[in-house]
């Protein structure tokens, strides 16, 4: 899929995936690939800088978690502020998609 499309929606994707529970980076990249049935792929080179960016903005928070028998991993969870941003972006995205659909005549509902 087009790189620009991906970039615009990347933040929304990450925030959505962290909404239910904290996840580590590799898990996030796998989920994006699996749920998009291979259409979307986030590699480490773009995924981690984005995670750090969101963390600096205070939308997500990373924490090293040690589970027995495994190397420690950094899990990210949504902050209160991140939750608000997610709600706003979701609404914006929906309005955007509907507007595009009305113009292009793509029937999706």
């Amino acid at each position, binding site marked *: 899929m087009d790189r620009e499309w991906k970039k615009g929606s990347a933040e929304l994707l990450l925030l959505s995936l962290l909404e239910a529970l904290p996840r580590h980076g*590799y898990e996030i990249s796998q989920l994006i690939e699996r749920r998009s049935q291979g259409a979307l792929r986030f590699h*480490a*080179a773009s995924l*981690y800088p984005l995670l*750090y960016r969101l963390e600096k903005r205070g939308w997500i928070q990373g924490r090293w978690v040690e589970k027995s028998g495994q190397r420690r991993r950094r899990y990210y969870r949504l902050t209160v502020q991140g939750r608000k941003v997610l709600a706003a972006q979701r609404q914006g995205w929906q309005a955007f998609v509907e507007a595009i659909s009305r113009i292009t005549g793509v029937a999706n509902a």
Partner: protein
Amino acid sequence: MPDWNEQIRTQLADLNLAPVREAEIVEELAQHAEDRYLELQSSGVTEAEARRITLDELSGHELLARELRAVERLDAPEPVVLGAGSKGRLLAGIGQDLRYGLRTLRKNPSFTLVAVLALALGIGANTAIFSVVNGVLLRPLAYPDPDRLVMIYETTPEFSQASVAYPDFLDWRHESRSFTDMGAVRSDDFNFTGSGEPEHLSGEYVSASLFPVLGVTPFIGRSFLPEEDRQGAACAVMLSYGCWKVRMGADPNILGKVLTLNAMSCAVVGVLPRDLRFREGAQIYVPIEQYNSVELRTRESHPGISVVGRLKPGVTLEVAQAEIASISNGLARQYPKTNAGAGARVVRMKDDMVGYIRPTLLLLVGAVGFVLIIACANVANLLLARSTARKREFAIRAALGAERGRIVRQLLTESVLLSLGGAIIGALLTRWGTNLILAAAPGSLPRSAEIGIDPYVLLFTLAVSIVTGILFGLAPAFHGANANP
């Protein structure tokens, strides 16, 4: 398995990240790379191919370095980690030191408690003594221009400091030019006949000039007029604030009321201010000319009269002393029978009040100073023992890149935190401590009503605690910082 760490570190090399931040990113990305590599292999890709794909995705044609450069340059606070370089970030560094220090002290509550208590005793004792020294020796007397106030004594061949004969006082006052004025005062008891039983009131005979010389303005009414301080004048009386408040029920119409004192009828002309610290305990003041005794009229008697003088601006103690001495010499020639060998001595009022107690107080200062030094030595010992136990921690920090100075600063911050804790508890102990000192020597300490905690005392406590913290922290800090990884 390929060494992902090395690969990633190469990509990050140009970013100049803080060492701790870099270590974190390397660890996280290496973990990801390993997961990806294993996944690729388990899906049937060859080892070499899996390695190539993983590395490609990792760098994304320099995308990683580019993106990270943008993100990591965002001005966001670094995580609190000790050991990172501290170039130009002194304040943030001190904030870190403080937070880390507090956390470390909280982790060892028993150590902290013992150290803080030892320091609290040392600092509290010093603060208590300093508050006494401050109130008694350092604080100026509570009069306007107190440095110009002096006491003038007569000297005789027998006494180096005798009370003054009243006619001599009158001649001094009349002839001297070094003083704006002089006042005389003599303590006495008065029989007060009020509505009930007659009672004794302690009071003072004062010259009309006394309160103007001191610069004391009455709270109500006025001071004595010169004509009220003459032989045969009608008796007038001034009341202390306490006497007016308690004995007269704070009567607002007290002026003009007539009290019977020593069978004389004396009209009240004024009430003195509450904070008057002159001859505390006196309840009433009567003009000295009402003192009905022959001793007042002869140069032979020295009936307990003290003389207060106020130097003219610019006149030194020595000049005044010389002038009074020469007047006394004249009097000795004029009245050889009574005044032969008599001289005069001028002493600053404050020295007169507190000079004799100065050595005792300084001795106490020395004693509590030693108490503090002992407390310091004890706490330094505790810290030394602990810094030996913490060697591992310092070695790790040094390995992470902490400079020696930074570790010393951290340890000094901890010790100053300890002593500040001690200072807070010590300051709370101070009130109790000064009460203890005053109770041990009731009435023997001049100006004891002026002892208390003021900004100077708090400043002293703060300074002592910081110096203390550095003093006892220095050796353990250097000891700790010398840990080798």
